[in-house]
């Protein structure tokens, strides 16, 4: 329409996606606390279970998978809190909403970056904690696989609740009330798959189901998060 528009090239969606991903990773890299604290929380919570329940290795190996899964859930919820908050506070979120590219992909970029810095480390450390909880070796691989599929689902679903509550002053507990019931299906299939490999049956079915859930979450949850962000910034 005017001179400016012809001389200046618009970015492609992919470029905007990558720019957002890079920026979020950079911020996490600079604000190490936000990354390290949930991780430490996870490790500490897992270590408390044997003290609270029993040091008996047989009993521990029975509950190991569940303990790790629930701790992952709590840690991911804790780390979610910061997903949009600082952007909301400094006005970057408004800029994101005014991007000409579909908000769906921008939200997806943020979720991906969040998972890379908070979900992935937890998955990587989980074999060590599983060893400490005396989880039988047969289940290690399944545990990692199920966590690899399950943690992004939790990030994606949790992101909806975070987006809905981003404008609230104190939202730690309300976030828990909203997100935790939502994570029941992931928890069920995550622990079932580990149980299956403990019973020497194939966990593939459960993992496939979780993959299906991940596919649905990737295609629908960012849509809901995007809508929620528009509502919250309104």
């Amino acid at each position: 329409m005017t001179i400016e528009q012809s001389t200046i090239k618009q970015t492609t969606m992919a470029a905007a996606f990558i720019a957002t991903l890079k920026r979020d990773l950079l911020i996490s890299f600079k604000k190490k606390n936000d990354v390290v604290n949930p991780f430490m929380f996870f490790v500490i919570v897992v270590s408390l279970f044997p003290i609270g329940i029993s040091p008996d290795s047989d009993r521990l190996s029975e509950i190991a998978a569940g303990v790790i899964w629930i701790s992952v859930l709590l840690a991911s919820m804790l780390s979610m809190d910061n997903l949009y908050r600082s952007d909301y506070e400094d006005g970057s979120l408004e800029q994101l909403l005014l991007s000409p590219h579909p908000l769906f992909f921008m939200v997806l970029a943020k979720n991906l970056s969040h998972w890379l810095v908070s979900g992935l480390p937890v998955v990587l450390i989980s074999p060590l904690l599983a060893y400490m909880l005396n989880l039988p070796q047969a289940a290690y691989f399944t545990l990692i696989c199920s966590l690899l599929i399950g943690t992004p689902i939790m990030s994606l679903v949790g992101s909806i609740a975070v987006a809905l509550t981003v404008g609230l002053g104190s939202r730690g507990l309300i976030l828990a009330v909203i997100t935790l019931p939502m994570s029941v299906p992931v928890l069920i299939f995550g622990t079932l798959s580990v149980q299956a490999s403990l019973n020497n049956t194939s966990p593939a079915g459960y993992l496939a189901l979780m993959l299906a859930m991940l596919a649905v979450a990737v295609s629908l949850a960012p849509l809901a998060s995007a809508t929620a962000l528009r509502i919250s910034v309104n």
Partner: protein
Amino acid sequence: MWLWFSKLGSPKWFYELSGRWLPWLIAAMTIFITVGVIWGLLYLPPDYQQGYTSRILIVHVAVAGTSLAFFPLMAVAGVITMVWRMKLADMVAKMAAPIGAWFSFLTLATGSIWGSISWGTWWEWTDARLVTMLFQLFLLLGVISLRSALEDQDKAAKACALLSIVGLINVVVIKYSVEWWNVLHQVASPVSLSADSPNGPQFWIAIAIMIVAMYLFLSVSLILATRNEILQRERRSQWVQDLVRQS
């Protein structure tokens, strides 16, 4: 089209219409509840296996059936709120959440009373329905607490609408996954509710009456609550002030 639609959903219109319907609904509700309670709880012949315990089921099944309606109701109201911005839909959704939570709680309470006699335990994790109902209750409480946390009414309306839609999807997924989980964990399965239900046409008729009664009760309480909310939100409008002056 727009204006026509918003007129249809105008609080004033609803208030007047529901005012005309209410006496009939209340009358029908009273009849059904009286018949259902007196006949179902006092005169229904005892089941050959469970004895008089089966009478609790009449209330329990009816309440449970009704409480399943809340998330679909709130999700539909949510879609209407988000797409057409109809304020009435949000008022209904707002009122439905606490009523739904109460119904879910009653389902859990009556279920565990029945369970304490039939199963010998107040709570049984292997019953998928009870577990699903528990999480439905949690999700409803989440919607309620989100509503109370958001101060801006408009924002709260949209946010709760979205959460209700997400919640409905979630309840369905939770239901199926809990059932799955259950099948696999049923080591020492207690008496399952449906496999061993007391039969006989009388029993089912009593349940049907009770279900109708509960749905009527739900409609009446929802309408009353919504009328209350309408008066509160529209208190500055002319027609509400006229109404108050008249009475």
